[in-house]
C-alpha cells in the first residue's frame, strides 16, 4: 500500500511542479493565460490535443465498453476519432488564422465576430458550457473509481484530491501549464497503458491464448453488433459520424486551434492523430475484453471499474500504481483543459454579453475553482455509466458542427438560421 501511495503522490506532485515552472514567463493577459500566447508548436500541439481528448472515458469508459460490448467498440472509436482529425485541417487551420487576426480567445467569441450576432453568441456559449459540464464530471468520477480500486480510499476522497491537483496547476500556469502537463501525461498514458496490456496478457497466459479463451466463453465480444446487441448497423454508422461532428466542438479542443503557433502545428497533429487513436484506444478495450475471463459477473456502472479491478488482481502492486497513474493522466489532462476553457468562456463571453469589461486573470482563477466544484458535485453521485453520460454530452455538442462549418466556408450562412438550427437540434437531443 505504501509503495502505491508513494507512486501516486509522486506523480501528482510532479504535475504541480510542472505547473509551478510554467508560471514563469506567462504574460498576465488573457491570451497569455488562456492560449499560452498562441505559441504551441507541432509536437506539443499533438501531445496536448491527444491528451486532452483522451479522457477518463478513454481509459475507464472504453474498458467498460470492451467488457460489455467487446472488440466491436474499437473501430468506432479508433477509426472514428482518427478520422475526426481531418477537422484539424478543415476547421482548425482557418479558425486559427481568423482568431489570430481578430484577437479571439474563445470559440463563442469567434462565432460572434464572424456573424456579428449576440443571440447566436449567447446560445453557442450556453450549449458549450451546459454539455461540457457532464463531460467534466466524468473526470473526477474516473479518479474516484481509480483510487478506490487501487488504494481502497473512499470514492469521494479520490475524486476530490485529483480535482484539487488539476485545479492547482491550472491556477499556477494557465494554458502553458496545461500543455506542459498534457505532454507529460500523454507520454505517461501511452507507456503505462502498453505496460498494463503486456502485463495482463502475460498473467493470463499470453494475449492470443487469453483471447481464444474469451472467444470460447463469450463469442459475441468478437463480432458485431457486439455484446448485448449494442451496436446494430444504424448505431454503428451514427457513432462513426459522431466523433467527426462532435470532437472539434469540444470547447477544450476548439480552443487549442486558437493556441497554435502556426498552421503547420495543426496539420502535423492531424497526420499523427490516427496513429495515436489506433494504438492507444486498442489497449483499454482489450483489457476490458480479457477482464471477462477473471471478473465475469460485473454489471452496470461496475463495468467502468474493470480496468482498476483487473490491474489490482493481476499486476504487482507497484505496476498497479503506475497503471493508475496512466489512468489519472488521461482524465486529468482532459479535466484541466475543460476547466481552463470553460473559465475563459465564462469570463470573456460572459463579459461581452453583459457588456462589461472582461475580468482579470485573478478572477478567472476563481471561476476555475467554482467550475471544478460544480464538476465534483456532479460526480458525487454518478447517474449512469461513463459511456452513457459521455454520449449524451457529445450529441449535444455535435449540434454546433453545422453552424461552425458554415461559419468557416459558407458566405450565405445567416445568424438567424444558425440560431434556429442549434435550438431545433438541442430540442431534439433533449427530447
Amino acid at each position, binding site marked *: 500500500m505504501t509503495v502505491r501511495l508513494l507512486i501516486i503522490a509522486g506523480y501528482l506532485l510532479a504535475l504541480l511542479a510542472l505547473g509551478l515552472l510554467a508560471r514563469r514567463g506567462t504574460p498576465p493577459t488573457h491570451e497569455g493565460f488562456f492560449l499560452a500566447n498562441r505559441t504551441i508548436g507541432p509536437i506539443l500541439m499533438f501531445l496536448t490535443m491527444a491528451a486532452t481528448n483522451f479522457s477518463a472515458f478513454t481509459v475507464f469508459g472504453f474498458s467498460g465498453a470492451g467488457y460489455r460490448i467487446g472488440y466491436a467498440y474499437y473501430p468506432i472509436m479508433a477509426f472514428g476519432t482518427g*478520422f475526426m482529425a481531418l477537422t484539424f485541417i478543415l476547421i482548425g487551420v482557418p479558425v486559427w488564422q481568423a482568431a489570430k487576426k481578430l484577437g479571439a480567445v474563445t470559440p463563442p467569441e469567434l462565432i460572434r465576430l*464572424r456573424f456579428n450576432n449576440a443571440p447566436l453568441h449567447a446560445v453557442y456559449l450556453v450549449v458549450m458550457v451546459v454539455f461540457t459540464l457532464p463531460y467534466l464530471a466524468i473526470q473526477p468520477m474516473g479518479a474516484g473509481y481509480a483510487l478506490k480500486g487501487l488504494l481502497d480510499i473512499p470514492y469521494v476522497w479520490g475524486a476530490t484530491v485529483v480535482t484539487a491537483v488539476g485545479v492547482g496547476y491550472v491556477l499556477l500556469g494557465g494554458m502553458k501549464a496545461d500543455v506542459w502537463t498534457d505532454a507529460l501525461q500523454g507520454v505517461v498514458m501511452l507507456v503505462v497503458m502498453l505496460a498494463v496490456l503486456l502485463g495482463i496478457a502475460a498473467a493470463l497466459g499470453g494475449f*492470443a491464448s487469453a483471447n481464444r479463451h474469451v472467444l470460447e466463453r463469450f463469442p459475441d465480444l468478437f463480432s458485431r453488433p457486439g455484446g448485448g446487441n449494442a451496436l446494430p448497423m444504424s448505431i*454503428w454508422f451514427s457513432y462513426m*459520424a459522431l466523433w467527426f461532428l462532435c470532437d472539434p466542438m469540444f470547447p477544450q479542443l476548439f480552443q487549442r486551434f486558437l493556441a497554435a503557433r502556426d498552421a503547420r502545428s495543426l496539420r502535423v497533429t492531424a497526420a499523427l492523430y490516427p496513429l495515436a487513436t*489506433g494504438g492507444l484506444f486498442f489497449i483499454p478495450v482489450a483489457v476490458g475484453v480479457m477482464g471477462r475471463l477473471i471478473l465475469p459477473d460485473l454489471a452496470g456502472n461496475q463495468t467502468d471499474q474493470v480496468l482498476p479491478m483487473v490491474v489490482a488482481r493481476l499486476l504487482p502492486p507497484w505496476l498497479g500504481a503506475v497503471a493508475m497513474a496512466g489512468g489519472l493522466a488521461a482524465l486529468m489532462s482532459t479535466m484541466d483543459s475543460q476547466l481552463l476553457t470553460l473559465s475563459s468562456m465564462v469570463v470573456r463571453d460572459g463579459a461581452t454579453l453583459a457588456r462589461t469589461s472582461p475580468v482579470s486573470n485573478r478572477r478567472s482563477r476563481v471561476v476555475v475553482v467554482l467550475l471544478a466544484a460544480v464538476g465534483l458535485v456532479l460526480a458525487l453521485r454518478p447517474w449512469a455509466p461513463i459511456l452513457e453520460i459521455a454520449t449524451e454530452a457529445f450529441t449535444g455538442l455535435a449540434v454546433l458542427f453545422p453552424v461552425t462549418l458554415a461559419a468557416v466556408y459558407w458566405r450565405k450562412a445567416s445568424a438567424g*438560421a444558425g440560431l434556429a438550427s442549434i435550438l431545433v437540434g438541442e430540442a431534439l437531443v433533449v427530447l
Partner: protein
Amino acid sequence: MIPVAVVTTLVLVVGSLIAPARGLEPLARTTARGWRWAAFFALLFLLGNDFWAWRQATPLWSGLPFWLWYYVALILLLFGLVVLLIRPRRQSGEPPPSSNSRSRKAT
C-alpha cells in the same frame, strides 16, 4: 444522432437560402483541390462501415478477428492520405526544396 445532424443541417441550409446573410465574409474559401480530397476521404469513411463482415467472429489472427485487422489497415491508410494532403506543394517549374536551399546559399 444522424437524424439530429440531418435536421440541424437542413434548418441551417434552408434558413440561410431563404434569408441569406449579407455583408459577412466566411473565414475561408473552398478550392477544387479541397473538394477532390473530400471525395477521397468520404470514400474512406464509407469503407469504415464494413457491414459485409457483420456477425463474423472468426478466423482469428494473433488472437484478434480478421475484421479488426481490416480497421488497423484503414487507420494506416488514413495516416498516409493525411500525410499526402499536408505535404508542401511546389508550383510547376519550381525547383525541389533541396536544390532551392543550395542555390540560396550560393547567392
